[in-house]
């Protein structure tokens, strides 16, 4: 079964993502900040990470940096789901190795689910 890590600090967004992903047949872990995310990745080796940017303790940029510099983790696809919509933020995340970037308020959850499927079925590969 495909395992996904959601890194998000808002309960309602976790809920929406978790319910939809589980219905699609994925198993899901949740980390509510960047520090917890690193621990979870070590523990459960997810096949894909859905990553928020603004979070307490360590932010999403920190997680991106840690994952992409680690040879064992760098091939895990990372889809950034953030409401930071500025060009600079998007550019920074993509340059740091994020594979996709969605501004949450502008995209239906179905689009996110479709993207997750594309990565996990190998139709889309990590940069």
């Amino acid at each position: 079964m495909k395992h996904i890590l959601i890194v998000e600090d808002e309960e309602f967004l976790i809920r929406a993502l978790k319910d939809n992903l589980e219905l699609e047949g994925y198993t899901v872990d949740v980390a509510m900040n960047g520090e917890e995310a690193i621990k979870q990745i070590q523990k459960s080796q997810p096949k894909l990470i859905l990553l928020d940017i603004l979070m307490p303790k360590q932010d999403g940029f920190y997680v991106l940096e840690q994952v992409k510099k680690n040879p064992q983790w760098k091939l895990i696809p990372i889809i950034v789901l953030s409401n930071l919509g500025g060009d600079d933020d998007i550019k920074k995340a993509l340059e740091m190795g994020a594979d996709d970037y969605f501004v949450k308020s502008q995209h239906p959850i179905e689009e996110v689910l479709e993207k997750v499927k594309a990565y996990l079925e190998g139709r889309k590969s990590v940069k």
Partner: protein
Amino acid sequence: MDKSTKSKFLQAKKELAIYKWADKKTKRGFSVLYKEIEQGKKEKEQANAKTEAFFTSVPDGILALDLKGRVIKLNEQAEKILGYSKNEALNKHYSKCFQLSDGKGTPIALEYNPLEKALANVPAATISIAVASLFLIKKNGKVIPVALNVATVAFAKKVAGLVIAFHDISQEKELEKLRLDFLSLASHQLRTPLSGTKWLIETMQRNVLGPLTKKQKEYLDQIYQLNERMTKLVFEMLNVLRIEDKGAIVKKEIVPIVGLYQGVFLAMGPAAKNKKVVLFNALKNHRTVALETDKVMLEAILECFVSNAIDYSMPNQKVILDVKEEKDALVFFIKDNGIGIPKEEKERIFQRFYRASNAKGHKPDGTGLGLYTASMLAEKLGAKISFESEQGKGSIFYLRIPKKVV
């Protein structure tokens, strides 16, 4: 004394009196002349002192160059900003002390250097160039943002050189950054609950929690539409705040209108298709036309007009986008046969949040910010917006934009 001696004596006395009189006159004349010279000297000194006082007291750094680009004068403020003393800068080429760069400290190419441009054009015409966002490398290597003005100086009807007035805008840049950071954060905080509502409703609409009754589905769809409307409003309001920011800089680039039309049609195509409105692209007649302006801003204005034309048309109606060429300007026009604007409301449609009475019924989720935003952008580009409209028959919106941004 014999008669002739007496006569000679009298003659001599007369001449002496004349000499004395003349001498007095001459002395007085010289004295006047001397006074006048002194006065002239004083006035000249005063004028010099005034120029010097002006030079030292202006808050800008000032650099004067001769036609070969050598520094012939600089004020204390310029020394302070640049870090070079008068001795180090005077009589040397300006590039020794006035090195313009990009934000990373890489010296800018000669073709983009406003001083080189000015020096190359000097004999031809009096020019004035104002540059808002350039950087300067100080003597200590620090890179600072500067705003500068370059103007030619004419003396006795001949061009004598250039004067550059510049100032450090680090503080303004810092404030602009704070403002943009605040907007970005405010935007994030407002979007987060809206995106949560959106995804939770979508989860229910996908029947993830079980099937919904017809009535529940209708209610949910309505809540979803309201949430989308709120999201759009937040997006447009923040956009307005960004544009209203005085710091928003107009970029200049050569924009061929062919590319512009294609961009606008690409962005608006799906909306037109949804509404079954026919978009007519008249660009093929203007393949060679280009203008110098900010492409993103111009596209945003045209997209606003086209989007309104689509929104306020009926299915199967036509929206035409075309351009007329004038001597110094291009006039874009967007014509529709839609609902039009009521006569008594024509003056108000550019007001922030204003929506015409017939627009509300036709499209309930408009924000009333589109034309306001377009008019602000037009102002920044030095362009003018006007329109003709008749209720029930349609509208034509015009954007008259100079071929070159000054």
